C-alpha cells in the first residue's frame, strides 16, 4: 500500500493578470478538446477498442446552419460528432479529406469522456469497424482456431 503523498497543485494563472483575456462564462466543466478529446481511444459499450478520435465535427450555437470554420469563432461550440478516418494524415500534411471518407460517430452515442471516450453501443454496429469485420470474416475466422478462446 502506498502512502498518500503531498502533491504540488499546478499553479493557476493569477486572475488579476492584465495580459490574460477575460475568462469565458462557465456553464459546465470546460473541456479542452485538443487535449482531452483528440487522439483519445474510443471504446464501445463492452470496453472493446473501436477507433481513435481523429477529428471532431463542431457546430456554433446559434449558427447551426453555417458549417464553415469561421462561424465557430467567438461562440459557444457544440461537439456534434466524433470523426474517424484519414484525418490524421490531413492534420500532418494539410488539406481536408472528403466527408465521404470520414466515419461519423454522433455525439448522442457517447456515454462518457475520461482518459478514453466510452460509447453506449456495441462497436460491431458501427460503420467505422468495417475493416475489423472484413479482416475477421474474410481471413481470421477462416484460419483453424480463429474463434478459439485463448484462456
Amino acid at each position: 500500500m502506498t502512502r498518500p503523498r503531498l502533491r504540488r497543485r499546478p499553479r493557476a494563472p493569477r486572475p488579476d493578470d492584465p495580459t490574460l483575456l477575460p475568462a469565458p462564462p462557465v456553464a459546465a466543466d470546460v473541456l479542452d478538446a485538443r487535449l482531452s478529446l483528440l487522439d483519445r481511444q474510443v471504446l464501445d459499450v463492452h470496453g472493446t477498442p473501436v477507433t481513435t478520435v481523429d477529428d471532431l465535427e463542431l457546430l456554433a450555437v446559434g449558427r447551426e446552419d453555417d458549417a464553415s470554420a469561421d462561424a465557430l469563432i467567438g461562440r459557444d461550440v457544440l461537439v456534434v460528432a466524433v470523426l474517424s478516418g484519414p484525418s490524421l494524415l490531413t492534420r500532418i500534411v494539410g488539406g481536408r479529406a472528403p466527408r465521404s471518407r470520414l466515419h461519423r460517430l454522433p455525439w448522442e452515442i457517447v456515454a462518457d469522456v475520461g482518459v478514453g471516450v466510452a460509447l453506449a453501443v456495441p462497436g460491431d454496429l458501427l460503420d467505422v469497424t468495417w475493416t475489423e469485420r472484413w479482416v475477421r470474416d474474410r481471413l481470421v475466422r477462416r484460419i483453424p482456431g480463429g474463434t478459439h478462446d485463448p484462456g
Partner: protein
Amino acid sequence: MSRLLGVALGVLTAIGGFLDIGDLVTNAVVGSRFGLSLAWVVVLGVVGICLFADMSARVAVVSGRATFEVIRERLSPRAAGANLVASFLVTLLTLTAEIGGVALAVQLATAVEPRLWVPLVAFGVWLVLWRARFSIMENVTGLVGLCLVVFVVALVLLRPDWPALGASALDIGPPPGESGLTYAFFAVALFGAAMTPYEVFFFSSGAREEGWTVADLGRARLNVLVGFPLGGLLSLAIAACAAVVLLPAGIAVTSLSQVALPVAQAGGQVALAFLIMGLVAATVGAALETALSSGYALAQFLGWSWGKFRRPAEAARFHLTMIVGLLVAVGVLMTGVDPVLVTEYSVVFSAIALPLTYLPILVVANDPQYMGEHVNSRVVNAAATAMLVVVVLASVAAVPLLLLTGGGT
C-alpha cells in the same frame, strides 16, 4: 503460500525473459573485444529499463491506457506518426533478429542450415500466438530461459582471477588497440540491447493482458526491481565469460557458436545442452514478445481491438499485423542475411528510437488525470529525468558513431 509462489514465478520469469538475442550477442561481442570495461553500461541500462518498465506498467495498470495509446494522445500528429513508424520498424527488425537467433540456436544442436529452420520457427511462433494462453507462454519461455544461468556456472568453473576481473570492470575506457570511437559505439549498442523499446510495449501491454489492477502494482514493481537486475547479472556473466576465454585468444565474436565457446570449454556437453535450451527459450520468448509488440504498437496507435486475451476473431487486425510481421521477418532472413549482423543493427536502432517512447511515458506518469495518486514520486522523477539525458545522448550519438566506426569494425 500460493501468493509467495506467484511472486517467485514472476521474478524468475523476469530473469529468464530479460535476455534476448541482442543481449546475448552484444555482451559476448563486447566481452571478447573490450573485456569488462563496458560493464558500467549494462548497469546503466538495467537502471534505465527498471525505471522505464516501472513507469509504463504503472501507467497501463492505473489508467488502463497502454503505451501507444498514450504516445498517440500526447504527441502532435507528426511526432506521433514518426514515432509509430520508427518504433514499428525497429520492433520488426528485432523480431527478425530473434527468429534468426532461434534458427542459429537450433543449428547449434542439429548442424542443419539455419535457413531451413526459419520458416518452421516462424510457424511455431505464430502457432503459440494463435492458440496458447498468455501466462503459459510467458512462464514457460521465462523459466526455461533460466537455463542461461549456465553462463554464471561456466564463469565459476573457468576459475578466473576474480580480483583482476573486478578491477577490469572498474577500468573505464577503451583497452589498448581499440579506439575511443568504437568504445563509444559499443557503449551505445550495449545500452540499446539492455533498453530495447519492445520490452516496454510488451511489459505495459502485458499488464493489461494479465488483467493487473492497482493491487498488483507492488508485485509488478518487485518483478522489475529484482528480476531485471538479476537478468543484468546474467548479461555481465556472458561478457565476463567472453572476456576470460575469447579476449586473451584474440577471438572477436561474429557468430552464435562463438558465444557458446566459453560455456562449452568450461562445462562440456552438459553445459552446452543447458546453454542451447536456454538460447532457444530466450530467443523464442523474445520472438513472441516482439511479434506481439508489433501488433500492440499498430493496434493501439490506430485504436484497433488488440490483445491475446481476446479470441483471434475479436482482434482480427491485431492478429493480421503479427502474421504479416512474421512473414516479413521470414522474407528478410531467407535472403541469407546474417542474423548476428541483423541483431547488431537492431540494438543500435533500438537506442536511436528509445527517446520517442521514453518521453511520452515520463510525461503521462506525471499526469494526475491519468494517474491520480499514483503519479511519479520525486525520487523516481529525478532518476527518470537523469536517465532521459542519457537516453537522448545515446540516441543522438548512435548514427554518427555507426557511420564513423563502420558498425564497429
